[in-house]
């Protein structure tokens, strides 16, 4: 391969990597499914007739409530969604006048429940619905902890196959080309079904046309990264039980930072820990070596001492020995002399 070709290939690979990353994380931001549907709820139009609740109950084949839906006395109590009621309408007083507000799943653009689910049972659908798949659900109820709108509910009474229950956005009906049950039944046009961007346009138009009638805010345009259900109101949203302090950070982004530390821990901890271990071991080794050296030195000194003693002893021994030998030799010589003399005397040398 020619060098130039190789460099060219490298550049190409680099460029494609860069391009790849540009479309993914970093500066890219996600705007959700285009053409996804939503519903616009206009609290100035809602009259609290509970037709939507009745339709929801019928469409989803939920158990009939104790009191019929045309009994409006239930509006006196603050209610929330329940495993057998996916939507409720609550009544609030503002300046002495009743204001109604419908509650159901807001179908977030970036759902907290889906982000929290550890089996991926929640899914943002291209229609805009946040769907739930009971066949995956383990029943940990973390989705209920995560949901900032406190929507998912649970079948606590069921020992074997309890499910999380929430508004489905009537996804099957939408796919058939029908309206969601509640929207269809609303007599007052307080619910408008349509594409989300179109709904935003309508909401802005209503506020522009009647600035004295509306609060200049579309709830759900930004909240928690935006929801597919949108709300406009004539009274502050806080006054109709809608929290205005949720912020605009999409739920999955709340955990991104902390989750990104996880791979870093896995990648770097072995390094630190083996490092710690190695240092410990090295210390031990050095300690051991030092110990050994000390012993060696001690031994060497002892040996040297011993050697010296030995040498001295040996020398002494040698000296003694020599003296002895000398003595013996002398003695022997003497004896020999005497012997020689003797021998001479006896005329014989026997050595």
């Amino acid at each position, binding site marked *: 391969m020619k060098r130039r070709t190789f460099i060219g290939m490298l550049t190409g690979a680099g460029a494609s990597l860069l391009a790849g990353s540009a479309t993914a994380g970093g500066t890219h931001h996600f705007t959700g499914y285009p053409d996804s549907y939503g519903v*616009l709820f206009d609290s100035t139009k809602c*009259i609290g007739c509970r037709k939507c609740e009745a339709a929801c109950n019928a469409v989803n084949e939920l158990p009939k409530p104790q009191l019929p839906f045309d009994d409006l006395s239930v509006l006196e109590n603050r209610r929330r969604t329940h495993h057998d009621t996916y939507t409720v309408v609550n009544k609030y007083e503002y300046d002495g006048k009743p204001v109604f507000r419908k509650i159901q799943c807001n179908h977030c653009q970036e759902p907290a429940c889906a982000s929290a689910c550890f089996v991926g049972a929640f899914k943002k659908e291209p229609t805009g619905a946040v769907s739930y798949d009971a066949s995956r659900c383990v029943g940990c109820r973390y989705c209920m902890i995560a949901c900032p709108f406190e929507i998912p509910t649970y079948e606590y009474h069921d020992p074997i196959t309890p499910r999380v229950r929430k508004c489905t956005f009537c996804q099957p009906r939408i796919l058939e080309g029908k309206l969601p049950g509640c929207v269809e039944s609303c*007599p007052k*046009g307080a619910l*408008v079904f349509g594409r989300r961007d179109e709904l935003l346009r*309508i909401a802005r*138009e209503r506020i522009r046309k*009647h600035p004295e009638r509306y609060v200049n805010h579309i709830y759900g345009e930004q909240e928690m990264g935006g929801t597919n259900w949108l709300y406009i109101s004539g009274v502050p949203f806080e006054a109709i039980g809608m929290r205005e302090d949720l912020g605009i950070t999409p739920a999955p982004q709340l955990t991104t930072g902390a989750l990104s530390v996880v791979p870093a821990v896995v990648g770097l901890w072995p390094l630190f820990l083996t490092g710690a271990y190695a240092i410990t071991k090295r210390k031990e080794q050095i300690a051991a070596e030092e110990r050994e050296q000390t012993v060696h030195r001690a031994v060497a000194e002892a040996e040297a001492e011993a050697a010296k003693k030995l040498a001295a002893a040996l020398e002494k021994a040698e000296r003694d020995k020599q003296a002895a030998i000398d003595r013996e030799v002398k003695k022997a010589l003497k004896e020999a002399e005497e012997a020689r003399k003797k021998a001479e005397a006896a005329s014989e040398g026997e050595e």
Partner: protein
Amino acid sequence: MEKGRPMRWVGILCLSLGVAGFGFNALGSKQERAPEPGGAGLIVIDTLAASGKLSYPVVRFDHDKHSKALENKCDSCHAIAEGSKVTPLFKRQGQEEPERIKAIYHDNCIGCHQQTVQTGKKSGPGSGECRTCHAGPQPSVREVIPFDKSLHYRHASSKMVQPAPGQRDNCSKCHAQDTPEKRNLSFAKDKAEAHTKCLACHLEVTKAKQPSGPMECAGCHDAAKRATYKVVPDVPRLEAGQSAAMLLIAPVSKSATPQNTRRSVVPFDHKGHEAKVDRCSACHHDARAYGVPACTQCHTAGGTKDGKFITIEQAMHRPRAMESCIGCHNAKKATPQCAGCHEFLGRTTKSQEGACAKCHVEVQLSDGIEQNKAAREALARELFDAMPKKDTVIRINEIPEVVEIGILSKEYQPSKFPHRKIVQKIAAGMENSTLATYFHSSPNAMCVGCHHNAPASANPPACATCHSKEFQDVDGTKPSLKTAYHQQCMGCHQQMGIQKPADTACIECHAKKE
């Protein structure tokens, strides 16, 4: 010793844990309740707030309670200058050092309380009861007095309000620098001056043993109290040299050419409008600064700083400004008789074709007319009389009496809509309104209130022509037939203040199906 201490700590902390645990369980989201508003005489004394942080909450002071106890002897607390001018400051004439002011309040308030107690009467707190007075702010029902025409007439026609020497009328008694030649609506430059002026006069009249205006706060500033006062029903026109009819001449447009010298003018029934508003400043706003100027003095074609750069065109047409023509008319349209239709049609829309011609006429102006008040008035009268006049006579027999609506026939019996009765009721609401009779030019105009988006005719197309039964249109702006009916009926009922039937009382319109 060493042994016992940790145990004790553990015990104390476990106890606090338990107590707090239960406490917090009961700790929901609590909301602080705002204190009930006090009477109109309740004022807040926070004089020292201007000179730094307060070491105590501000003082709640009930002025009316004190003036009643002191039998309206203003000089018990306030110095009275030449004439009967009451100094608004407490026990002092002008600016003082903060420490001095503090001493003045403490010495005089507490001193007076103590003296009163010594005479055997009940009195306010003495020294050491700091927080009885320093109790923090409290809202009050007090409001700015709307000095309406009736009140103005009662003052202007009072024999106690005499013209100053050498003056023809008594206007200058209250309106400073007002002369018959140059009118000035200005009354007082600030709250203090207003109080001094009113009270000085009331005080003098009282001294003269004549029935006088109120001396206590509630007398002017409490709506409930004012409601008990006499109202003059037909106040005569206030003559201040103004024309009855005026010719408002639009500035020369940029498209004006030597060939087209016709000018757009509005013949304006000034006298008619005088009867409809409470006071001159309803239109001649900012009178305190400018007197009664012509609109064009500040609002020119290009705008001036005095006019906050609002052009004359905007000044006349701003849809939500009460000083503008359109704005004021819009406000009238928000009244129950009108709102049923107009809320729905939209108060801010540029309305139907030919709407401009309701006010504007193009004429060839004669030379010098702009400087000639009498000539302008004459032309205005002439043009005004030539304007198309009302014809709102409803031909009852042409109106369907009952319309049956059966789109919810699956659940209910068809609803019987009393069409004619409703038309008659709406027509009755317009009968005495000059605004309505002037602007609703054709008898079918009012049909448009419900049969919108169609030409005004006696036979408008059926609702279902546009509104489909099944579905909304794609962008959701056009409601389904069911929604359209409910919006129209309920919307109108709500706007016109018709309580019955309630929105949710389905069976009162749709009889139950057996």
